[in-house]
């Protein structure tokens, strides 16, 4: 008998005047100590499915028109909240994507892990203390004993996710639901967490329902896979069968949009567009009542890089390594020291009024296309902003023509001009961001994780667009990312940075084939094989 049987599950969200069918007549089984992966792009209904197993969706907003969820033969749909609480966190546990917000910032981790123990096991204070320490060492939290009284903000992202896992495992559940457990984490930590999950699974003989959009993670972890598209499972089967021999069109499409091959053109040696020499960014630390400067944090430490026209330099590092600061400093959006030469001319130390004309030539595209577009302006107004500053003399019709041309170039209908950003999908929004930068005909673009918040297939489309544009306009790109697969597909040269310092700098093939620095080696191993020594 299966551990969990889901039959004909439907989930509908009702908001004022609208109904959205998130999950449509879904059926699947989870066998004991099996890992099944639920794969699909955002909006496919993966999380809604997972949350409805434990009926965690908001009451009064989410409805279940049909379906049954049986756990060891016991029906969970329609039982009382009290009966359900017996199952939640006890027999079935869940870990979430964002370890930052899944922990209560006001309680120590001991208290938070202990909560489920007190609730379900009725343990005494000493027993809870002992068990918590045991759990923390089980999830391999460093110095587990001293960390018991730590608050969530004292832990790093990976450590928090370990605490979340410890909480989920506290009552030795039979089924663990992991909703994108590693998406918010750096590659090396992602690899660590995945191998930890695998280890714990075999130790406790748990079943694992893994929800992810990352096919690489699926390949690594799952026994079986279910591919979801707009609320339905389109294909399910053993992992090898589905990946080797996909039957459904959508599965094929998903697999084909994985970044495998090299997308970029062979390098052409253009003129030097931007060149930095010993670029440093320091944030001062103030202490004491008089706020006197007592030291500094070097976010970027003596980085020298040269980017030529038509060339992409990938800037790789973990979060907090100073990647974004480096990009912003090159654009002189934050203050820095060291030399920055743009088209052979020193821009460091120029007054802000003298920089303004240069702004049209160097642009930036941000990670989150939702935050980087003003929700109160139309797409036309957003794209127009640059020409209002730099070509203020142009007439209304000329401006409109320029906007239409650039929208066309990034693959958007010129008719979209009068729409607001919230009417667009993530990929389309990112195209708007590119149009905003491109309308000024820049020579140098900083791409700050431009695709990391997008679905895999959309990501590939955007990257292809960026490469096309680079070819057409001979653009110089600084591509900031933590995703080494994207770097390999896109960059000519790679700059690996750790704690603000360059650890390795060289052509992409050389670095991936023959990394010299141990840190680069770890990064590449974690990203490509999802393993960690």
């Amino acid at each position, binding site marked *: 008998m299966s551990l969990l049987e889901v039959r004909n599950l439907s989930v509908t969200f009702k*908001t*004022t005047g609208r109904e959205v069918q998130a999950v449509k007549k879904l059926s699947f089984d989870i066998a004991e100590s099996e890992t099944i992966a639920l794969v699909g792009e955002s909006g496919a209904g993966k999380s809604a499915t997972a949350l409805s197993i434990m009926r965690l969706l908001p009451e009064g907003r989410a409805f279940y028109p049909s379906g049954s969820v049986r756990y060891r033969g016991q029906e969970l749909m329609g039982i009382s909240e009290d009966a359900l609480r017996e199952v939640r966190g006890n027999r079935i546990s869940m870990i979430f994507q964002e370890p930052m917000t899944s922990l209560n910032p006001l309680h120590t981790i001991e208290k938070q892990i202990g909560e489920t123990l007190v609730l379900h096991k009725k343990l005494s204070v000493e027993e809870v203390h002992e068990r918590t320490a045991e759990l923390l060492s089980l999830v391999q939290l460093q110095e587990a004993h001293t960390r018991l009284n730590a608050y969530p903000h004292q832990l790093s992202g990976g450590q928090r996710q370990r605490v979340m896992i410890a909480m989920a495992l506290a009552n030795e559940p039979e089924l663990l639901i992991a909703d994108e457990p590693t998406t918010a984490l750096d590659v090396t930590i992602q690899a660590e967490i995945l191998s930890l999950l695998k280890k714990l699974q075999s130790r406790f003989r748990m079943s694992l329902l893994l929800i992810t959009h990352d096919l690489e993670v699926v390949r690594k972890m799952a026994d079986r896979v279910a591919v979801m598209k707009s609320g339905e499972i389109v294909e399910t089967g053993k992992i090898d069968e589905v990946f080797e021999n996909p039957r459904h069109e959508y599965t094929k499409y998903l697999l084909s949009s994985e970044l495998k091959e090299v997308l970029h053109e062979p390098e052409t040696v253009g003129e030097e567009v931007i060149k930095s020499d010993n670029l440093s960014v320091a944030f001062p630390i103030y202490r004491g009542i008089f706020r006197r400067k007592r030291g500094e944090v070097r976010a970027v430490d003596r980085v020298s890089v040269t980017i030529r026209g038509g060339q992409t330099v990938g800037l790789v590092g973990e979060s907090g390594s100073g990647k974004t600061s480096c990009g*912003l400093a090159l*654009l002189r*959006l934050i203050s820095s020291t060291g030399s920055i030469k743009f088209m052979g001319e020193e821009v460091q130390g120029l007054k802000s009024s003298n*920089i*303004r*004309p240069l*702004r*049209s030539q*160097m*642009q*930036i595209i*941000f*990670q*989150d296309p939702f*935050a*980087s*577009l*003003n*929700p*109160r*302006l*139309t797409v036309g107004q*957003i794209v127009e*902003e*640059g020409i*209002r*500053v*730099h070509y203020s003399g142009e007439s209304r019709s000329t401006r409109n023509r320029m906007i239409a041309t650039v929208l066309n170039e990034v693959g958007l209908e010129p008719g979209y001009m*009068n*729409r*607001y950003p919230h009417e667009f999908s993530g990929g389309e929004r990112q195209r708007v*961001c590119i149009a*905003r930068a491109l309308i*000024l005909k820049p020579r140098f673009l900083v791409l700050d994780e431009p695709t990391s918040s997008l679905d895999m297939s959309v990501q590939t489309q955007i990257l292809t667009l960026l490469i096309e544009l680079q070819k057409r306009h001979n653009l110089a790109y600084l591509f900031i990312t933590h995703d080494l697969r994207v770097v390999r597909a896109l960059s000519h040269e790679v700059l690996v940075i750790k704690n603000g310092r360059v650890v390795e700098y060289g052509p992409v093939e050389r670095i991936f084939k023959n990394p010299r620095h141990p840190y680069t080696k770890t990064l590449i191993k974690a990203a490509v094989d999802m393993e960690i020594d």
Partner: protein
Amino acid sequence: MKQEKALLKNSQLVRRFNSFKSNKRAYISLYIFLSLFIVSLLAEVVANGKPLLIRFNAKFYFPLFKNYVETDFGGDLEFEVDYHDPYIHDHITENGWMLWPIIPYKFDTIDYALDVPAPAPPSRTHWLGTDDQGHDVLSQVIYGFRISVIFGLVLTFFSSIIGVSAGAVQGYFGGRVDLIFQRFIEMWASIPSLYLIIIITSIVRPSFGLLLIILLLFRWLSLVGVVRAEFLRVRNFEFVKAARALGVRNSVIIYRHILPNAMVATFTFLPFILNASIIALTSLDFLGLGLPPGSPSLGRLLAQGKANLQAPWLGITSFVVLSVLLSILVFIGEGVRDAFDPRRNLA
């Protein structure tokens, strides 16, 4: 294309208005408030000590717009006509007629024809009675309501403009500017404003304008915190960074990118600020530090009620009027707040 743009912009407004309308209590309150306000704006026509129209010796007279002297109506003196004077009254009605407003008393009309000593209780001539100087209470309420609301609106308008600008500058530039401004505001806020007002009004005779300025000195603080917080939040958004990367000027960024996002918080607060402004004026009037003697005022009526406890209609009337006015403003405020709450709209 322009039209389409306007439509799109409107759609959000329309959605907010519909959301406001769906809150019955707020919508009805808005109705009541607007009708009361319109009636009070027409106070001269509704309650006046002069007739609206006089027909005398086959000629029309318009006392509302022109001051007549008694000789015009066959009197003996070159004085302004007192139309309540029985002699004049009889004289005119013998040779024509007079059209009186619904309430034939202005706030400062003294009724010398009272058959009981003032304050007179409610009767057919004075629906809500008179105060201890023989002024009609209902008339005072209508004029007092108007001056309170107008004072509140003007004070709200100016204090919002100053508050939003100060908050915007602090929030956008942050750092040292913010630090200095914040300390200044803390010091400013700790000045005991009531004593200051007492001192000023004992030196200078307060007028509508002067009171407005004095209260403005302390009232603008209320919005600074909200707007500053909103600016601090929004200035770190990537679309602001993107605008800076495009070379857009600070003033344009503040005005075009951040201000519209901060306006929601401002609008939400406006009805409550209006409320506070009305209370401020009323309490000053109650203490006798407000508008000059002889002007209609809800606060003064309240003080009358306190001084004449044997005449409960004074206290009860001013209490009911003030509590209804403040309550409907709070209800409207709640409706506006819910309608502008993005979490409700985006769902």
